[in-house]
């Protein structure tokens, strides 16, 4: 992880960290904090705790998002302090609906300069965001909304597994990972397990991201904690609730970053600190998908 972040994430980059509630790249985000990257434009449909940490740690110049909150709990206090009071520094924001931001990824992944949608008419959003315009249908004459393409410098996505080349498989919520990866110039994939190529190739319909767009594969179990990985672990709700308390006080948030990020060398140390009992509590029972037959065609 250290090498991947060090090689592929640069100061000033536009960095997409995707995963909709599922597979949030916490380990990668914390490594970016640890390496003290600066002036990043951070992009994510739902900023969540991860962006609260990255903003509080001073990595971000700008936040591009769709919905800003601690899901099921409340506010992101560090982001709010930055937006409402410029504390500890100014933070530029650029906001969309989820669908609008998704369409920006989709346009970029598809080599299109814009994507048409029905999403913004009658709202104040285009007033505060120059990436929202309108386009006229050449067949019906109808006016549609349109967003511009977003080409991030880096996309970081988590997944259950990949082979060493980067052919990456996800089940459960696949979010916007594929679009983000195809939209980006550089891609880091962080997985629970690196598996032999044969495991991936036994089920090619499961592959979300092909090797050819992937620059680095990092194997780091539990790297999405405190979010969840379908079939591997559940969301750690206690951590989401605790975050609300921790972040109400900037000093306590500082202490959290010192203890859990700067004070630890890597994710292995994080897991040791988290403890086996917490991990045991979060492991679900098994619920297996049945196998399907692709057939051996010779």
């Amino acid at each position: 992880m250290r090498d991947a972040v060090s090689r592929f994430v640069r100061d000033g980059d536009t960095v997409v960290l995707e995963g909709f509630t599922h597979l949030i790249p916490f380990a990668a985000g914390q490594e970016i904090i640890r390496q003290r990257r600066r002036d990043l434009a951070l992009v994510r449909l739902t900023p969540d705790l991860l962006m609260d940490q990255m903003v509080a740690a001073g990595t971000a110049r700008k936040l591009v998002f769709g919905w800003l909150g601690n899901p099921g709990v409340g506010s992101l206090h560090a982001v709010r302090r930055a937006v409402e009071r410029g504390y500890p520094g100014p933070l530029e924001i650029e906001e969309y609906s989820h669908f609008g931001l998704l369409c920006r990824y989709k346009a970029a992944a598809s080599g299109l300069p814009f994507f048409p949608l029905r999403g913004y008419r009658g709202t104040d959003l285009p007033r505060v965001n120059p990436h929202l315009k309108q386009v006229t249908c050449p067949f019906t004459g109808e006016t549609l909304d349109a967003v511009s393409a977003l080409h991030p410098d880096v996309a970081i996505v988590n997944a259950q597994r990949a082979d060493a080349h980067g052919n990456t498989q996800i089940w459960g919520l696949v979010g916007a990972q594929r679009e983000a990866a195809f939209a980006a110039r550089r891609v880091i994939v962080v997985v629970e397990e690196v598996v032999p190529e044969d495991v991936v190739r036994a089920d090619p319909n499961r592959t979300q991201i092909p090797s050819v767009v992937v620059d680095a594969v990092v194997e780091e179990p539990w790297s999405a904690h405190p979010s969840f990985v379908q079939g591997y672990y559940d969301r750690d709700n206690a951590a989401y609730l605790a975050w609300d308390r921790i972040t109400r006080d900037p000093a306590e948030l500082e202490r959290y970053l010192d203890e859990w990020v700067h004070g630890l060398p890597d994710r292995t140390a994080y897991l040791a600190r988290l403890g086996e009992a917490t991990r045991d509590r979060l492991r679900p029972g098994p619920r297996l998908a049945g196998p399907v037959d692709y057939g051996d065609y010779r």
Partner: protein
Amino acid sequence: MTGGPGAPTRAEIMVFAASREVRDGDCVFVGVGLPNLAVQLALRLHAPRCHLIYESGVFGARPVRLPISIGDPCLVSGAAQVLPMAETFLYFLQGGRTDLGFLGAAQIDRYGNLNTTVVGRGYDHPKVRLPGAGGAPDIALNARRTVVIARQDRRKFVERLDFRTTVGWAEGGTSREAMGAPGGGPTRVITDLGVYGFDAETREMTLASVHPGATLEQVREATGWDLKVSSSLGATEAPDQAMLRLLREELDPDRIYLKG
């Protein structure tokens, strides 16, 4: 039915009223929290064949526990389909396959337009920075019917929004149609005090019923404009004991969403 230890709380009345908006067979875009409880209740009562869609990408969810977010893993295990998020919006919502969407709001005006972006007039330096749009603008624009669920007070039911995040009936009358909005617009607002419809011509919010235990005076007090009241104003139907038992013992036993 009101009063006594088994009496429904206002949150329970809200959830029950919301569940009545779900018709059997509906495709429902579900938000987390009260809408989720409402749909679970509808599934058990009068709409066993409604389909739960979550913007996280899930169609036909069958959660065996109460989901804590719209992306809870319990929504995936046992679902009928998981799609990329983009296709959920493109095909189910924008493609016109969604019958009903539930929305919340920090501010709402008389035409059902919503603000979930900022409180205070300065967008760049807001008094309170709210979560923003999420899925709401697209749901409001594309679903056949939308229902807003919100606790009611004067700071929330405002004469003028600080920011319009999500369009309802726009400026009323035919203004929503005129902008070419494909969906059907808001049909109901459900608060902890009453249930509202919208006038078929002016599209102004109109009080349809007051919850048991609340008064018309309280409702007016909690509304920031001169509220229209239906000529056939009645009392909101309250859930019976069997429904309350379902809500309290099966659907939200830990009172996560039914605190209030």
